[in-house]
């Protein structure tokens, strides 16, 4: 009796607040303003302009993920190899920024990168002349890397931390040099961390609308901005829902791809 009662609330909750809303979105996506069924919203999406927004969103999210990985892996690796005292401090330092409102941290870049901002002045001092730093693709990329880097570093760090040092010692005893140890042992063993790092970076990056809104100067539109625009500005919930469905598909497909990699790795490990 207790068992049944304790479970029902959340099951009901999931149905009302998770499943039903998703069905509503799908329903909006395949209907007109008056509620007639249609594929018009998806046909409208087939316009080259919207396709290019989608491609752009995927492209910049991938780019951000790659940059995070390239910057983040060495960092995670570096953290595992400092003395334990500093190690703890570094992990805390990595988590701490998340406690400051992320919109505010992102917004601060606007002032840092402004034409008369600190970084511009610095570049001018070095003699690089005036550089346009704000409101372009690079700024949006920077915003993404800045926000999602800890999401890449932490899972990789956790996995690296768990690697049994005895394996590495054994390999070294058997004559493997540092590079071989890294390529043959450390890297393969850290793949699960990399995969979850990629997931945690790519997913928010592909769907963000805040970062381009704050750092893209309204010129750089991603699929998230389109959705926000349709829901809040234009009031076309049907087209907005169609865009949401497409965004869900992108996320689902990328999750499926990553999941497969994960599974393969597991099999190899066993």
């Amino acid at each position: 009796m207790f068992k049944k009662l304790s479970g029902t609330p959340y099951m009901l909750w999931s149905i009302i607040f998770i499943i039903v809303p998703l069905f509503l979105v799908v329903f909006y996506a395949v209907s007109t303003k008056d509620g007639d069924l249609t594929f018009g919203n998806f046909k409208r999406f087939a316009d080259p302009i919207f396709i290019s927004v989608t491609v752009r969103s995927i492209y910049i999210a991938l780019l951000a993920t790659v940059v995070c990985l390239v910057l983040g892996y060495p960092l995670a690796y570096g953290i595992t190899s400092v003395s334990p005292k500093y190690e703890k401090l570094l992990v805390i330092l990595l988590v701490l920024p998340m406690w400051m409102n992320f919109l505010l941290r992102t917004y601060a870049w606007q002032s840092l990168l402004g034409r008369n901002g600190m970084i511009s002045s610095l570049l001018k001092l070095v003699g690089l002349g005036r550089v346009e730093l704000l409101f372009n693709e690079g700024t949006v990329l920077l915003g993404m890397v800045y926000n999602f880097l800890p999401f890449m570093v932490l899972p990789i760090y956790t996995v690296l931390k768990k690697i049994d040092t005895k394996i590495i010692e054994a390999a070294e005893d058997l004559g493997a040099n540092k590079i071989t140890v890294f390529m043959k042992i450390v890297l393969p063993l850290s793949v699960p961390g990399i995969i979850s790092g990629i997931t945690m970076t790519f997913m928010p990056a592909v769907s963000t609308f805040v970062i381009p809104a704050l750092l893209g100067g309204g010129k750089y539109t991603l699929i998230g901005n389109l959705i926000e625009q349709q829901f809040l500005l234009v009031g076309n919930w049907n087209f907005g829902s169609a865009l949401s469905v497409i965004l869900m598909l992108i996320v689902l497909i990328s999750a499926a791809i990553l999941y497969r990699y994960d599974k393969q790795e597991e099999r190899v490990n066993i």
Partner: protein
Amino acid sequence: MRLIKRFYILAIIAFLYAPILFLMFFSFNQGKYSGNWEGFSIHWYVKLFNDKQIMKALYYTVLVAVLSSAAATILGTMAAYVIFQMKLRTQKLVLNVNNIPLLNPDIVTGVALMALYASINLRLGLLTMLLSHITFSTPYVVLSVLPKLKQLSKDTVEAALDLGATPFQAFTKVILPEIMPGVIAGALIAFTLSIDDFVISFFTTGNGVTNLSITVYSMARRGISPEINALSTLMFTTVITMLLIVNKRIEVKDI
């Protein structure tokens, strides 16, 4: 090699902290415009406490975070207990549903919930924001409690039942103390997520109810007042102080 490593780590840390230090620095600025230092002053801190809009937003942020994390913790812990006892197949199905809000982009969760509230004519406001926060944070509680349940030895529960405890007593007296670390971790995650949420709140609130993130966002469109810098400086230093105290009292094993 060592030097390069140190330099690299420091450079990244500097990158992560540059905007934060920038904000904190300019919260003490006399003038209104960030990037233009006009002398030291704490008058933004004074103004902050007299700013009705920011104080209201702070109030709602904390209120929603406390209520939603409490509700999510209770809901999620009970759900985890039931999921744990399910047959493998149903368990998988339920967990998949549970994972939807984790995997789904925030913006989709936001518009979907907004569509739900509109379809049942629920006025957007505190209630809708609260319901949304419970919805997106409960799955994290489930996921943080479940592993602790799996570590639980079945024998203890059975022993308790054999000794005449009701299932409810078995849960509260035997299981709950065992899984407490997971419950607390879940509650903390829920609380943090709620405090920091912007996207879902943005779509699911209305009628004058806003949280800090929404206030910051609407301010970002018309120039952020240094009061907000002051507020974040205060919140940030509070967190650091709390961490230092916690760190002093118990050695943090892992984060």
